[in-house]
């Protein structure tokens, strides 16, 4: 089981072997890497050459200099050049789309936080100011508001894809659990963020929501006391929601996304469940599944097949 052995050392710590199939043999690696998003990404022709030039001519080569001190090339190469299974289609972009929606939320959220005042007296006025006076204020607030809906939709669709493709099964059980935690955290974001505009709608919806939380089993009453910062909705409740919304939960989400992605890279993305490696004779498969597999196989081999 070669895959299991690969699990043991993290790829970022393992120097690439000169004859590594993902490195030297791949013709389009250098050009591809140069077009990458990160300007500082250590780029060399191939990992083997990097090792020698990195040691001998480091000062002459900025990329080599950085790489000699970070050793990031092997990690990046392993990341970027890792194979994704045959048949991978557009359904597999839902996870990264959710991640991207989160990035949009994080960026717009930072800008909103620059103008928002989390006090019951000033919160509403600060939102009014942000909406009416600040350059692009309403636009950014709209992006944050609707981005939340988009992220919730994407996370549910991503989960549905994982469910129907059986992608939560061995050996990816832990990643499913992390994903469910991320779903709960995302809903928590939606709940805590709803109060912050501090208009009638958000205020009363939050009161009802916290009260419903309070009827939960065991931790319920403590949870709603924690959320309210006391037995009643008070002056510090808004600040508490603000802190939860922009420090506590985002931190947890980022950590969980890190673990989620780590396991995605580690375990690899699944192949579509109807695909079978063609080692067995064809008679063992049903015609229906065969047809699907062939159809999608054609898409996959043409590389960027149409959305399925």
């Amino acid at each position: 089981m070669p895959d299991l052995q690969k699990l043991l050392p993290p790829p970022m710590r393992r120097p690439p072997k000169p004859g590594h199939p993902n490195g030297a043999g791949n013709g389009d690696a250098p050009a591809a890497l140069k077009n990458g998003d990160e300007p500082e990404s250590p780029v060399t022709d191939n990992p083997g050459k990097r090792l020698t030039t990195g040691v001998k001519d480091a000062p002459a080569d900025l990329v080599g200099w950085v790489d000699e001190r970070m050793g990031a090339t092997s990690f990046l190469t392993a990341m970027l050049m890792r194979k994704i299974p045959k048949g991978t289609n557009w359904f597999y972009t839902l996870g990264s789309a959710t991640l991207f929606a989160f990035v949009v939320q994080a960026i717009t959220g930072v800008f909103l936080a620059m103008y928002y005042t989390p006090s019951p007296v000033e919160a509403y006025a600060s939102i009014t100011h942000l909406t009416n006076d600040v350059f692009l204020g309403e636009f950014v607030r709209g992006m944050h508001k609707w981005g939340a809906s988009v992220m919730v939709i994407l996370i549910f669709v991503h989960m549905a894809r994982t469910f129907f493709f059986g992608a939560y099964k061995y050996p990816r059980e832990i990643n499913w659990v992390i994903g469910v935690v991320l779903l709960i955290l995302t809903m928590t974001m939606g709940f805590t963020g709803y109060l912050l505009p501090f208009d009638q709608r958000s205020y009363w919806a939050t009161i009802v929501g916290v009260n419903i939380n309070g009827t939960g089993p065991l931790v319920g009453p403590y949870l709603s006391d924690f959320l309210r910062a006391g037995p009643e909705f008070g002056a510090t409740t808004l600040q508490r929601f603000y802190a939860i919304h922009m420090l506590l939960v985002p931190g947890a989400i980022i950590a969980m996304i890190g673990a989620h992605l780590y396991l995605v890279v580690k375990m690899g993305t699944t192949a579509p469940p109807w695909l079978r490696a063609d080692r067995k004779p064809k008679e063992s498969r049903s015609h229906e599944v065969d047809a699907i597999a062939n159809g999608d196989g054609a898409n996959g081999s043409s590389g960027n097949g149409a959305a399925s």
Partner: protein
Amino acid sequence: MNTREKEEYLREYEVLKKKGKPFFPYAIMKDSVMACVVVAVIIFMSLYLGAEQGPKADPTTTTYVPRPEWYFFFLFELLRVIKPPELVPIATIGVPTIAMVLLLLLPFYDRNPERNPLKRPIASIAGIMTIVAMAFLTFLGANAGSPTDIEIDVAPEYEAGKLVAAQSGCLACHQFGENGNNGPGPKLTEIGARLNPAAIARSLEIGPGIMPSYASMAEDEPEKFSDLVAFLSSLNGEEEVAASEASTTDQSVESAGGDAAVVEPDAGSSADGAGATTGSGETP
């Protein structure tokens, strides 16, 4: 999955992976296209749907009935669907908690090695049913209208009272036509035919049985209170008749219990003590 199945899966996966393409540029290309679509959709929504600001939060109002963000509609609708008070804890605590635990532990109780959705009908059907149920509840929640709406047609002069009734929480216990909860209070669709306005005003102030008293409203906001009484008195089950009758006479009646003057535009009744007493018994 036993060891043999695990090994078989890993072997199969390794073969499919070998036949695959490198993550860069193929998967990255698709991911980037998707990311552009996502940000384009968000920008579009922001531009066309905007981010309007509601009225400022006012903790002193007790009449505002809230609505959650749409993705919590299915939870709220669950609360509405499950009416009997003894079952409400099950709706609020039981269903979401159980669903969450079931979701978290999914890989540990679904131990079927098969991954093809066509070949594991139970899981697929359960998944589809869950999606349909959530979509249906969300749809219901979206179309339920504001929980503060009363959709009875009344003459224009009663609109103000209708709004007061809608915002005062009457719908929590009373039904108006198709709106509100049927119980614990009686239906108010035809209350005007059964009680005279003075009796209605008295009932509101006393709060018979478990019904809360609205005496404070009669004292602090007599206009709202008289609007409310006028609206309730106009409800006699026949909307058109009520409207035409009401337009004929306007009559001022001193409310029996409080110092607030109750303006009631229904001619056929006067404030007699007996009516008020029976009224307060029937109204909760």
